[in-house]
């Protein structure tokens, strides 16, 4: 099938989307050096900077969460591809005089490798950077080692917590300690009904028949889990996924959790609410207290239909950070 998207020159799509994004939210963010999104007003140097990197094509992630209380900078690669190391170093250099820098890296081959190269290059320049890696996808199984798990949309609530802690003036070590506590107790599982088309290559990524879905498909249409299976009802899918997630994070009755349904791009809010309703019921029945929730497009995969279900367990401090104010184009807490 011929690709049907509103595009000009496909090779310039990342530049054009970032230009449009910066023009749309000039009071909150700005674009520097073509592919680096920073706050319109930088935070004071006595606070730790939170920086992340990742491919474009997942809007609003990741750059949609640059702003007060969340990210200081997002280094953008091309569509679905991590930025090269020199660009990451350029962004890190902007915060070399801050109280510290924490780089949030999603566990994907390209993100990890370019981040590693960038950290090597930054170290040579005397820039000290700490790293936190998200790997909360449970598609390879609840017991799979972190190295085999992908970083999915869970990076966004984690960034919310890291950003709030940084805004409070905490040290790198304190922020990392809070962040890792949440990082260890969060999990995401994705389901896809219809695959995405790569906006530059024009190819469909992955394949699913009309009557199939795939639980565990990653956020680039790459497989995972047990492969395609027959379509099921919203309740069946929500219950199956929520139970797997609660098992993976070892949720205990009485614990407080965050429950997010993140749309992949072509799934309606209507469907997300129907799914949320059942997931909420399952979590409630397990004795959990749902203290934070969202149904929204946070990290999308072009026009893929499906969603990511996210569950994270709070302690008092991570919950307090989650509820702190923030002001970014796609997440505002007042």
């Amino acid at each position, binding site marked *: 099938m011929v690709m049907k998207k509103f595009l000009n020159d496909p*090779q310039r799509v990342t530049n054009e989307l970032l230009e449009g994004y910066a023009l749309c939210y000039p009071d909150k963010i700005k674009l520097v050096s073509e592919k680096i999104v920073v706050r319109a007003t930088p935070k004071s140097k006595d606070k730790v900077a939170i920086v992340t990197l990742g*491919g474009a094509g997942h809007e609003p992630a990741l750059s949609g969460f640059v702003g007060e209380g969340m990210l200081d900078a997002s280094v953008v*690669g*091309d*569509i*679905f*591809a*991590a*930025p*090269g*190391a*020199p*660009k990451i170093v350029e962004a890190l250099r902007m915060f070399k005089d801050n109280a510290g820098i924490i780089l949030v890296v999603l566990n*994907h*081959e*390209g993100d990890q*490798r*370019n981040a*590693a*190269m960038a950290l090597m290059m930054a170290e040579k320049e005397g820039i000290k950077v700490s790293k936190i890696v998200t790997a909360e996808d449970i*598609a*390879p199984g609840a017991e799979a080692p972190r190295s*085999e798990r*992908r970083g999915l949309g869970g990076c966004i609530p984690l960034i919310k917590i890291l950003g709030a802690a940084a805004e409070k003036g905490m040290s790198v070590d304190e922020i990392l300690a809070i962040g890792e506590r949440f990082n260890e107790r969060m999990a995401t599982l994705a389901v896809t009904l219809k695959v995405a088309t*790569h906006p*530059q*290559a024009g*190819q*469909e*990524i992955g394949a699913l028949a009309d009557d199939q879905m795939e639980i*565990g498909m*990653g956020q*680039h*249409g*790459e*497989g*995972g889990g047990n*492969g395609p299976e027959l379509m099921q009802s919203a309740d069946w899918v929500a219950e199956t996924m929520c139970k797997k997630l609660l098992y993976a994070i070892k949720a205990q009755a009485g614990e407080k959790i965050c429950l997010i349904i993140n749309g992949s791009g072509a799934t309606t809010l209507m469907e997300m609410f129907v799914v949320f309703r059942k997931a909420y019921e399952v979590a409630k029945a397990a004795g959990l207290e749902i203290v934070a929730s969202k149904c929204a497009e946070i990290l999308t995969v072009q026009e893929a239909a499906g969603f990511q279900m996210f569950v994270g367990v709070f302690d008092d401090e991570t919950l307090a950070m989650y509820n702190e104010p923030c002001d970014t184009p796609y997440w505002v807490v007042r």
Partner: protein
Amino acid sequence: MTNTFTKELLVSALKGALASVVARFDELNALDAATGDGDHGTAIEATLKAAVESAQQPGGLSDALSNVAMGIMSATGGSTSSLNGSFYMGLSSGATSDELDPAATVKMYESGLDMLKTMTTAQVGDKTMMDAMIPAIEAMSAAIAANPGATLADVFNAAATAAKEGAEKTSEYVAKFGRARNLGERSRGSKDAGATSLALIFQAFADAVANA
């Protein structure tokens, strides 16, 4: 036919590699779409365009290779960016003069492989570019070891043949790295795009040696 690896040879080989990859653009994207995100043709074209441009900046052979490394990493992203960047960094530190004889050329490629291995632990059989890279450079080393008088053409022909065979074999493998890893058994049956494009690049270098 030349028996000396120079900056001029590097530039003409990279130009040939770019033309060869552009001619197979759709095929490379389609191979990648089978197990990845369908952009390998796009990525490798951008990589070689940056390489051709950077190689022509002023300086000697080692400078040219270092410029290629930085040029590639600046112009591209994704997992190929730092892999190709580190390989050319390794070539740069292994380029001991501006005119390398066949034995020194092989040493330079061994240095490239060493640096690349600091960025990835992938081995032959893991369905990555290393399935073409490792046999190609081992074939270069073997060609010189078997015959110290081997020509530059012998060395690059051995590399091109080994890379092509290595790339062909990837269709039998299950992916252990990258996004394709998540497919497990389902990744068997199609060739790895990175190994395929690397085989084209080695062939372009062999052709450049033959035509120089």
